[in-house]
């Protein structure tokens, strides 16, 4: 299970059977350049693998302008 803290929405989501950053983004219906993904303070590219219990911060980058 992966825990996602989604910003700026302020939502906490639990995802099962998700083993890469790309899979997380797909489940959130986000493209790789629409959000930054952070694990333990480290930015992750979409090809990075994830482990059971990882907690991510996914911050959408689009501002209202």
């Amino acid at each position, binding site marked *: 299970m992966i825990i996602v803290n989604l*910003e700026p929405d302020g939502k906490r989501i639990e995802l099962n059977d998700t083993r890469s950053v790309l899979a997380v983004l797909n489940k959130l219906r986000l*493209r790789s*350049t629409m959000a*930054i993904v952070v694990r333990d303070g480290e930015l992750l*590219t979409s090809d990075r693998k994830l482990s059971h219990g990882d907690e991510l911060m996914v*911050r959408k980058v689009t501002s209202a302008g």
Partner: protein
Amino acid sequence: MKCTRCRKTAHVALPSHHSGFCADCYPLFFTKQVETAIRREKMFTRGDRILVALSGGKDSLALMLELKLQGYDVTGLHIDLGIPNSSDKARNKVENFCELNELPLRVFEMAAWGLPIPDIKEHIKRPVCAVCGKMKRHHFNRIAVEEGFDVLATGHNLDDEVARLFANTLRWDTAYLSDQGPVLPASDGFVRKVKPLFRLSEFETANYAFLKGIEIHSDPCPYAGGASFTSHKELWGELEHRSPGQKFQFYQSFLKKGKPAFAQVEKETGAELKPCTECGSPTSAEICSVCRIRAAVSESKAKAE
């Protein structure tokens, strides 16, 4: 993925540049893009006094920090819009950021000026985002002119520019298409305006802000729900995913091939500007739209009482 520069593990992947960068090399890429924008567009020099519009979001704060690191003479300007449960948070972020980085800051309060944005939302029957934008542009320009700054810099990025160009194109708005670009030269009553982040996407700025530890105000404006600007960005996000680099190509090609034609049309048919009889700001009417809105709110409030 490996860093294109040093071959360590990449932390930021940039499909439009066919590259990826690690946390150490990425800021160098960002700095180079800003340097290129300033140099190629002749935006300003190290002798210029630069006023930077600071909303508290990632783009404006990243711009302010990057210009300071590059050795430019920068002063921040934040406009407190007076929106409950929103404006105070944005203002705090800006004030804390400037204090932490020892950056000079001016704050202009819409409420103290007599026109907080909630009053506009309540009394003016026009989209509040458009009127709010007009107010901000008016005060950014006015303060820059009154305080003798050489240039006003904003944190508009490539996504902002493309979304705006797309909206202007959908309407074939000749006036806006004639002068949209990374540099708007100074003219009577208007300070020079520049957008040093125009080569960088929102994603690229967000990565820079994160790596530099910038605490940003990321709460959406409570009044911005359903703004067409945001949906245009989503459309372009999808296009960019399918064809990386298309945003930059659309914008650059417009600057080279489209803008000159619209500028020529506007030169022949555009309205002449003269000082507003109320506030002195340049306008095509006798009284500028900002003064007209202010009067309309006062009148509506008086009626309501």
